[in-house]
């Protein structure tokens, strides 16, 4: 009984109150954060679906005041995104392989890992300026290739990182077993390790696609935009993000409405890709 009397009731109450206040704050900030995000998604879906119809997919971008769609921008976006991944993925996977498989005693590997992480969160507009300097200035014109290259530079560090992480998950005993059978190192990597980490590597590539399909800043100085269907990657190519940017900033209501539809399309495809990745990883385990 004596021990109980020594408990400072006031202190206990104070601790409880402080705890209650802080936790209430935590719940309030969660609601506050979610409030903006729900508001954003709600307006996006509301406006987007209102202006999303079949003509968006079938007609090219219109001049101001006329009706039209986003067909050439959608096609252009798909094209430069895939070319970007096509350029970035092989290099990324191989670089990730080096970091995971061949760099045990390498002193340069930590540096590469570090630089890769910096590149991963470097401002994408800088990559746009870089590609402008090395491609657009020498060739003298904006082009789809330049846009693809800029996107490849954004995709590369993501793929390097996930490939390395995923290859490291493959247990060492698998490598040792394959080597013990007399397989050369490259065959162990290509036929055994890659196969074991297939789902993971693919995940990284999908994440990279999701990331670059909404990138706008680096495309402003590289792929630019095109009012019409582009016949080759050697000329400016219409793409959704830049079209959204130009249309949304314009004073014409038709253009702004198309921008909403385009924004909805991008958001849905990015969310879909991320959801696919998640289910992919869950079934992979």
């Amino acid at each position, binding site marked *: 009984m004596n021990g109980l009397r020594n408990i400072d009731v006031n202190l206990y109450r104070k601790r409880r109150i402080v705890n209650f206040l802080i*936790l209430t704050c935590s719940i309030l900030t969660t609601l506050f954060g979610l409030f903006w*995000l729900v508001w954003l998604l709600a307006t996006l879906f509301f406006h987007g679906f209102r202006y999303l119809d079949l003509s968006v997919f079938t007609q090219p971008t219109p001049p101001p005041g006329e009706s039209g769609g986003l067909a050439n921008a959608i096609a252009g976006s798909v094209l430069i995104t895939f070319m970007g991944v096509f350029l970035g993925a092989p290099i990324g996977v191989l*670089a990730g392989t080096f970091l995971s498989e061949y760099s045990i005693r390498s002193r340069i590997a930590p540096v590469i890992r570090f630089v890769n992480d910096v590149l991963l969160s470097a401002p994408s507009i800088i990559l746009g300026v870089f590609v402008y300097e090395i491609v657009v200035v020498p060739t003298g014109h904006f082009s789809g290739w330049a846009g693809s290259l800029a996107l490849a530079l954004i995709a590369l560090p993501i793929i390097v990182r996930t490939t390395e992480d995923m290859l490291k998950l493959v247990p060492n005993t698998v490598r040792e077993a394959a080597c013990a059978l007399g397989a050369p190192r490259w065959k162990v990597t290509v036929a055994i390790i890659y196969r074991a980490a297939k789902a993971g590597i693919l995940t990284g590539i999908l994440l990279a696609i999701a990331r670059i399909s909404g990138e706008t800043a680096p495309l402003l100085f590289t792929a630019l935009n095109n009012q019409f269907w582009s016949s080759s990657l050697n000329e400016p190519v219409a793409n959704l993000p830049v079209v959204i940017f130009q249309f949304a900033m314009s004073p014409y209501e038709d253009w702004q409405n198309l921008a909403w539809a385009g924004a909805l399309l991008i958001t849905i495809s990015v969310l879909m890709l991320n959801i696919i990745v998640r289910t992919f990883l869950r079934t992979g385990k």
Partner: protein
Amino acid sequence: MSIVRSGIRGRILDVVFANGTRICAFLVLLIIVAIMVSLLIGAWPALKKFGPSFIISKEWNPVTEQFGALVAIYGTVVTSIIAMLIGVPVSFGIAIFITELCPAWLKQPIATAIELLAAIPSIIYGMWGLFVFAPFFGDHIEPWISDTLGRLPVIGPLFSGPPLGIGVLTAGIILGIMVIPFMASVFRDLFEVVPPVLKESAYGIGATTWEVIKKIVLPYTKVGVVGAIMLGLGRALGETMAVTFVIGNADRLETSLLMPGNTISSSLANQFTEAVGEIYTSSLIALGLILFFLTFMVLALAKYLLIRLTLKEGVRT
């Protein structure tokens, strides 16, 4: 004979494959060096003409070809500070809610939702800011801000001015909303690193949830939390599209946060393709160079701190 031959072939392919991966890995290194070199070359004419005063000059006049980076640097830093003031506490609260308070069935859905929101491209945030948030903010919040905060001594000039909707403050807020999901998921990952045994023993001797957070979770993840904030700051500094829509693209230095301004990235986005003349383009690239070094420093620090946390984790477990 054929065994020997295939052995030799295997060894050759081994060397080819190993060096192939090595070349690709060095390419990553080469890219970052190439970015620095090409930015330096591009910025050289402007740096040569204006010298170190480029950084402190607030002049930005394409007509007279006088350029200085102060307005853009100021806008970049101020919008990022506003974003951090909003983003850090809110994402911190969200992370605490998810790791400590949330009922188990709600945990996964909220965590997934936050991560999905972090993946939404920034142009969507910018567009929403322009069409929805800026008009609302200009009509309802800004008049109130300039009536109350604008009348205070000292900080008054920061908050006075016409309610335009777009401006530095709006850009900072949009940026803050944008970094919330990103930072919340990084914070959550950090808090999950804390070994449950530590938390349980604290709860076991009668600590409240807040005391567990303050005395166990935070000290354990301290370095990582600072690293995560730096990572968010790096994002905010370099973010282009979320800002460009709502900042107003004005090249004057204003005291009031309600007035339009510019950040480094929004200057680039708005003016780069229209810039005529070597000095104009070169000055814009010089801005890009400054941004690159700024974010490089911040990100390097973030990486260093986060690596220290993982090292500690390795020792303890």
